[in-house]
């Protein structure tokens, strides 16, 4: 398995990129402005693309170069462009009402990272791989998931929720690059295009939201109860 024969330089490069992505997820958690979100998401996607390329280089998985390029292009350029177009058409630029202060979100996110770390450590030890990049990959994957869910729960703007979903997917992609670099290429490519379709659908739905409900904030979506 790739992770068992990793050189220290490669391991520290992977850990740097993974921690960088997690940090950017926290930046997304703590910012008020939608443009900041988007830029952090772009940077995160680029980091993950570089990670993909690095895994391909160190593990001799040449198809991962293609995946890295496609990730950088689609996740790093096309998706943010599409979302930017949606934002440009809306009249909102920032979260107007906050359920939870950004600083409290950051602290809560830190505790979620600790929880993810405990779980991953337990899993890693049960596999005998404790203390390697595996635990790091699992921690970052699980914590990006948890932070994504936190973003979905706490944010009210439609765009923020879409970005929260994309962070969820980013987390899975990051983890899968480190843990299962040998996953069949077809699956990875289809997942990438799947994301594109999702964002396009979201664009259409946001337009409907604006047209029929009048606002994109989920505080207005309170008519269906019980």
């Amino acid at each position, binding site marked *: 398995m790739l992770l068992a024969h990793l050189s*220290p*330089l490669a391991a*520290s490069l992977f*850990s*740097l990129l993974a*921690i*960088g992505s*997690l*940090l950017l997820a*926290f930046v997304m958690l*703590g910012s008020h402005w939608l443009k900041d979100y988007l830029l952090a998401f772009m940077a995160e996607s680029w980091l993950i693309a570089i990670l993909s390329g690095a895994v391909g280089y160190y593990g001799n998985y040449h198809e991962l170069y293609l995946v890295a390029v496609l990730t950088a292009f689609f996740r790093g350029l096309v998706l943010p462009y599409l979302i930017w177009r949606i934002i440009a058409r809306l009249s909102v630029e920032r979260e107007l009402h906050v359920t939870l*202060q*950004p*600083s*409290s979100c*950051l*602290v809560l*996110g*830190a*505790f979620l*990272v*600790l929880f993810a*770390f405990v779980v991953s*450590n337990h899993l890693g030890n049960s596999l005998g791989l404790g*203390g390697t*990049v595996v*635990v*790091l990959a699992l*921690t970052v994957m699980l914590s990006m998931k948890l932070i994504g869910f936190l973003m979905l729960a706490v944010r009210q703007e439609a765009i923020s929720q879409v970005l929260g979903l994309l962070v969820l997917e980013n987390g899975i992609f990051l983890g899968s690059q480190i843990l299962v670099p040998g996953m069949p290429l077809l699956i990875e490519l289809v997942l990438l295009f799947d994301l594109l379709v999702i964002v396009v659908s979201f664009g259409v739905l946001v337009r409907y939201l604006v047209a029929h409900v009048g606002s994109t904030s989920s505080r207005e979506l309170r008519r269906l109860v019980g």
Partner: protein
Amino acid sequence: MSVRDVLLQIAQVVTVLVLAPLLQGVILQWEERIQRGRGPGIFQPYRDLRKLFGKQIVVPNTASWIYWCAPVVAFTCMMTVPILIPVLTDFPLPLSDMGDILGGGLILTLGSFAIVLAGLDSGSAYGGIGSSRSVMLGILVEPTLILVLVGITLLAKAMLPFVVNHLLVQQPSAYWSPAHLLLVFAFFVLLLVETDRLPIHSSTHIEVYMIEEARILEYSGPLLALLKWASMMKQFVLFTIFCNVLTLPWGLSQHGTAIGALAAAAGLFVRMLVVALVVVFVETAQSRLRFFRYQEPLAASFMLAVLAIAANQLR
């Protein structure tokens, strides 16, 4: 426990005493220069201290013994900390194992606490405001500070700052590891907050913004000089910890000769100038945060410290 070591230890304390106002002067001068003013010159804090030592002490009627003790306690604490941390040499000197990193942090806090009490002691409104604000900041800062110090400890698996210094100098992989880099950023935010730089303090003396100055509003004369000197020394000590223990750990004297100590002092000051440059840029680029938003940079620092601790376990 040779004479040379004792002399070096004294030299460390003297370095901090003497160079602290110079650092403050340099920072203020550069800030003025960046804002296209002329600045008062880098030796102005020395002149201020000399002037204050010659002035009369005016004591409020409501002051108690705390009023007299607090400046002395603060000054003494600030003189104690340089004994514990690597200032000039990278090997432990006599009495430097009196306290480890955590102990050093606690002594710094003790000094601030004494000044807080002094602010409350005279019973004036401004002192009360300053003290309450400073305590509120302390509630936000202290847990983060302890976490950062714990992170540093976990990085080197030892509680002494000297071991951390050796680790970072000898192993570049530890220097460039995410745990260390995150700790640097976390400590930088704390540095800004503890030395009362923007985005926390305001450069004007309007009462509603003051934190530091409000606490010492009632002081005059030599006591005020001691307090100002103590806060300058605190800034110097924090910069020293930042440079020597975390960010730029190179350049400390390894054999303890006189030339080495002098060169180490000069090198230390040069490295601090680098950090001061960054601090000046950061300060000039931002404006003061609204009071209820003070938690935001501190929450970011907390989060970075937690991430550093988690990342450290994964090395």
